[in-house]
Every structure is written in structure tokens, then in C-alpha cells.
């Protein structure tokens, strides 16, 4: 009888061992990545903020600081720059507790009014209306909106707009009046300011503050 050549490719135990290795390795890697992600998306503390320690998601008291958006040469993308100058929201510096409460109210309002039906927040939502991820940094709120709403500051203009969006023609697709109260609107502004301070690795790509006259993008590109 001729000698039979053994083929590994048709051996069940080879495939079984390979599958066990791939599955086992993937399970261990995913468990590790889960904990690693949890560590990275943890919200920072007020102390870290005061010391200038960078975190992807800063503490709620970030609303007390000036937030800028600058091109990082090394990373090749734009990243939020927090402080060191202060720029308290509505001119009043908030304690960690007050800031967290305000942000929470803002978040609840954003959820209750279903902003994501039209807007995008951190990659979630629709593209019918402008992306709100970096809305706080949009120069429109400093250049045109205070004059249009008759408000003294950027945040006051945002509050006025949020309470009566149907009054101000900002976009071809007008935002409807959602019945947001002044307190809720203030919370939403704090929520938006905090969201703009989150390091999103340059997302959204189209939003660019440094691009000359927003020729290459920006929420309200010319």
C-alpha cells in the first residue's frame, strides 16, 4: 500500500487549535482595551485642570476657562487649548459642583429636545443642521450673533438664539422654537462649551478655525 501523505490543512485539530488561539487572543485583547478605554474616557478633575494636565475629557469646570482651537504641528490636526486664562461662563466662575449641575441640565435638555434629530454631537446624530461638537468655537457666535440678537456676549447670544431660534435667520434650514427655557438654554451653552474642550483628534474635520476666512471649511463657510 502506498504511503499516505499527511495533510495538515485537512486536520481538524489544526483548525481547532488555530481558532482557539485567535479567539483566546482576541478575548484577552478586548478585555484589555475595554479597561484602557475606560481609563482614557474618564472625565478629568478640577485639580488636573488647574495644573494644566491634559485629558481627553476635562472636568466640568473647564467652562471657567478660555478655550481656543489651535493647529498642532506634531499631531497634524487641530486640538482644543484650555486656558491658562480664565473666561467664566456668563461672567461668573463656577464651583466644580455648580459646573457639573449646569452641564447635567444641559445634557438633559439636549436629550429631551432631541438635538440629534438634526445636529451631530461627537459623531452621533444627523447632518441636517450644523455639527455642534465644536459649536462654541464657531466665530459666528462672536462676529455676527451678538449683534443680531442684541446680546452683550457670545454666551448671552447663544441663550437668546436657543430660546427663540425662529427669530434669527442664520441658516437656510431654520431651527424651530423648541420651548427651551432660559435656565435650560444656559445649561445647553455650558454643555456646548464643555463639549468643545474635548480632544476629539481633530474631529469634525471640516470645522477649522485657523483656515483663512474658512475657505476650506468651517461650520459657516463662505
Amino acid at each position, binding site marked *: 500500500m502506498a*504511503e*499516505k501523505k*499527511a*495533510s*495538515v490543512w485537512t*486536520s481538524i*485539530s*489544526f483548525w481547532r*487549535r*488555530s481558532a482557539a*488561539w*485567535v479567539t483566546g*487572543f482576541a478575548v484577552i*485583547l478586548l478585555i484589555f*482595551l475595554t479597561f*484602557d478605554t475606560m481609563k*482614557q474616557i474618564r472625565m478629568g478633575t478640577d485639580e488636573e485642570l488647574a495644573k494644566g494636565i*491634559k485629558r*481627553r475629557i476635562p472636568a466640568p469646570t473647564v467652562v471657567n476657562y478660555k478655550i481656543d482651537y489651535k493647529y*498642532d504641528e*506634531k*499631531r*497634524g490636526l487641530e*486640538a482644543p487649548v484650555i486656558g491658562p486664562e480664565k473666561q467664566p461662563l456668563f461672567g461668573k466662575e463656577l464651583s466644580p459642583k455648580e459646573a457639573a449641575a449646569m452641564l447635567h441640565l444641559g445634557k438633559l435638555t439636549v436629550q429631551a429636545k432631541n438635538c440629534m434629530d438634526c445636529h451631530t454631537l461627537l459623531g452621533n446624530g444627523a447632518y441636517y443642521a450644523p455639527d455642534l461638537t465644536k459649536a462654541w468655537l464657531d466665530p459666528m457666535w462672536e462676529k455676527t450673533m451678538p449683534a443680531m440678537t442684541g446680546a452683550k456676549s457670545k454666551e448671552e447670544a447663544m441663550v437668546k438664539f436657543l430660546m427663540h431660534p425662529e427669530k434669527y435667520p442664520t441658516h437656510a434650514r431654520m431651527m424651530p422654537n423648541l420651548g427651551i427655557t432660559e435656565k435650560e438654554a444656559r445649561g445647553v451653552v455650558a454643555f456646548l462649551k464643555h463639549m468643545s474642550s474635548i*480632544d476629539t*483628534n481633530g474631529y469634525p474635520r471640516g470645522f477649522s478655525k485657523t483656515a483663512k476666512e474658512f475657505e476650506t471649511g468651517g461650520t459657516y463657510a463662505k
Partner: protein
Amino acid sequence: MGVMFEQCTDISCGNIFAWLNQGPLTLTIFLHTVIILPMIWIYFSEKKKLEKKN
């Protein structure tokens, strides 16, 4: 110059995946390496076993 090994610029450079995710040594190549190399070893060990049986 310095294409193979560049300074890590990610926000979390203490993380091995931040290093693996930039430059030519991407996470994909790394994962394929750690998955395929042991499979080669499994292949030859199975081959040895089959040859012994025969």
C-alpha cells in the same frame, strides 16, 4: 528621515496602542503578526503529530 520610528504625538503616549497606531507599524500589521505567527507554529506541530501517527 526618521520615518520608521517617529516620536509619539498621540494624547496618550503611555499606551502601547498609541505607538502601534502610528507610522508603518500599524495596529493591523501587529495584530496579524501575533495571530499568524503562532498559527505557523501550530501548523508545524500538527504536521509532526500527523507524521508520527503514520
